[in-house]
């Protein structure tokens, strides 16, 4: 269980030992704090921390890591570390599920992580280690992944179940695991962080804050082919299907065109109605109705709506908005 310090058992352990935060100021705790710093440093450099120690050390290191992240107080760093912690667990879990010979232990692991934490009913075959889960459980998670291999059509599917190997089953819960850790950090209520931890957090913050501050430094150099195609149709004076209008308007708004600019473009449509167009464009811009700004549909969605006209430059894009983006020199 040293590999899975986020489980309920770990919290119970800390409560049972009546551990107090002040104890972190004791000299023998320096090793734990340094280990937690080493782990975060590795994660913030984009590397999974693979070292594994005893149960007690792992639990305390996990706790200190959370305190460090909380003290740094930067959203991007919290997200990054949560993701890498999830990937670390993924690595251990995948190995455990594949290599564990005892079916009982395998089932216990599945029950603790998949069922208790994420409410996924999953069955592991004793000989092949192939995992079986319901299509609904699969879709809830896989539909958030952008890689095409996670689409249901590319999976082994039968009688309402999806069959995954252990690596895939574990990868499926990475985002949830990451969110679970992120939520733990966010919900932590710490009245006073021990001095040593705070100073280590400040060091990490100084070192990495520059790298993780989001900068809007992109400009669009060229329209993606799906948008070009839609514009060509409009310029020819033909009507676009509703889904294409949605794509075009959300795209143009996303790259910074004003509502007036967008309405102007739609004037070429044979069925143009200024009142309706204005309402809809303002609605998409989040200024009418729900007041939610609509996002540009993903490439995957455009493919299923027959609006994708991908070219070589579209490879690896997940949203048309990424097309032609170049950093300012």
């Amino acid at each position, binding site marked *: 269980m040293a590999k899975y310090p986020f489980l309920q058992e770990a919290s119970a352990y800390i409560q049972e030992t009546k551990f107090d935060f002040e104890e972190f100021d004791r000299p023998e705790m320096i090793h734990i704090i340094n280990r937690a710093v080493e782990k975060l440093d590795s994660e913030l450099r984009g590397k999974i921390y693979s070292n594994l120690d005893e149960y007690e050390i792992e639990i305390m290191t996990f706790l200190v890591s959370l305190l460090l992240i909380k003290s740094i107080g930067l959203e991007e760093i919290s997200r990054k570390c949560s993701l890498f912690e999830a990937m670390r667990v993924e690595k251990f879990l995948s190995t455990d599920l594949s290599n564990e010979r005892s079916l009982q232990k395998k089932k216990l692991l599945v029950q603790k992580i998949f069922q208790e934490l994420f409410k996924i009913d999953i069955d592991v075959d004793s000989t092949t280690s*192939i995992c079986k889960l*319901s*299509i*609904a459980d699969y*879709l*809830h998670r*896989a*539909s*958030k992944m952008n890689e*095409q*291999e996670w*689409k*249901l*059509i*590319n*999976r*082994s*599917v*039968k*009688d*309402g*179940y999806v*069959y*995954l*190997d252990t690596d895939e089953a574990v990868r499926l819960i990475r985002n949830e695991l990451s969110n679970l850790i992120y939520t733990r950090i966010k919900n932590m209520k710490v009245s006073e962080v021990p001095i040593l931890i705070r100073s280590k957090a400040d060091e990490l913050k100084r070192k990495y804050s520059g790298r993780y501050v989001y900068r809007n430094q992109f400009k669009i150099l060229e329209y993606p082919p799906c948008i070009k195609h839609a514009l060509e149709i409009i310029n020819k004076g033909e009507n676009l299907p509703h*889904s294409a209008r949605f794509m075009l308007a959300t795209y143009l708004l996303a790259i910074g065109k004003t509502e007036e600019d967008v309405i102007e473009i739609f004037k070429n449509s044979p069925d143009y109605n200024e009142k309706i167009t204005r309402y809809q464009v303002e609605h998409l811009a989040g200024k009418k*109705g*729900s007041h*939610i700004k609509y996002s540009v549909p993903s490439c*995957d*969605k455009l*493919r*299923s*709506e027959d609006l994708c006209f991908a070219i070589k430059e579209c490879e690896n894009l997940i949203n048309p908005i990424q097309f032609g983006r170049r950093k300012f020199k």
Partner: protein
Amino acid sequence: MNQIGNPNENIDFLREVFRKYYFDNKYFPYLYSIEKREFGYRKFDSLVVRHLSFKNAGELVAELIRNVPLDVYYSNAYYGLPSNPINEKQWEGADLIFDIDIKDLNIPCFQDHSYYICNLCGFVNSDQKVCINCNKGKTLDISIPCKKCFIAIKKEAAKLLDFLCSDLGIKEAFIEIFFSGNAGFHFHVNDPNIRNLDSNSRSNVTDYIIGNGFMCESIGVRKSRNGFMIKLPKGGIMTGWRKKIASNLGINQKSELKLKHIVETSGGYEGFRNEINKITKKFGVHIDGPVTNDIHRIFRLPGSINGKSGLIKTKCDDLESFNPTNDACMLSDSEVYINLKTSLKINLKNNNFRLDNTLEKVPSYVAVYLICKGLATINKNN
């Protein structure tokens, strides 16, 4: 409504027949959790009213008899507050609905029974161009599906049913098939286990059923520096789409060499990908994806009149024996006179009608059908 034209006499006639139907058919046996649904309807002037809610079928029928709409819709979604604005409705889940339509099947005979009606003057043109009568209006494509069309759409419906039961594992008890009342079928899936799927998950299901996005890698063909390599997936190739493709290619889990040969003869990775696309197109079902993906959409109410035809959205218990032009034709038999815009032949309620004259005396259900299609107008002078 464009098809109907605007003479008040047509509207009065249709409203009278529709009102009688709703008066005589007060029950909607396939409408569940009525208090959680959003309702809407299209009036005869084309305006759509949405965000209505009813506590029970009695309230709904009273509204239909009072207002007599052209089309009646209800949400696939279940809401805590169905009459609130869309973002305040408290979404609690939605039935998964599939729509298949004859027009999407590219049936060769489709053009033979299509009519091109001017959206301004209502004139029936022989071609899909600017109206030759008024020189202004655009033509709307109106079709009267024939027997071949219905055979083809029923075959497509059977394919969809197989996908839902065999692959997605949905029990038949949760699937209700309805003839839409015009030219297609609606599959309503009310399985509580999939009711809370979001739009992205539904889109994943639609792509599965259509056959969009199958990767060669899923059947073991990968791109490599030397062109391609074969590595069959650990999970096997004998389930789901992998099985459909493998069976079509004549391969199984042990056919690595045969698969290598197939890829080589297809022209390598890219050529093989084109072959795969042809197979997925052949085995996929022509469903309307955006309809299924929408979790806030309103759909035609089962048991209501389809304003495009006057036929009823009818439950279909057996695809093979179901006869849409008979089983969904439930309006009055009383005879009326109509002015026809073109000569035509139709079959309704198992009766053949050959209509060659400008003025014809026909049962009301024929009159409604042709007026809704824009091919006739009511004649009150005879």
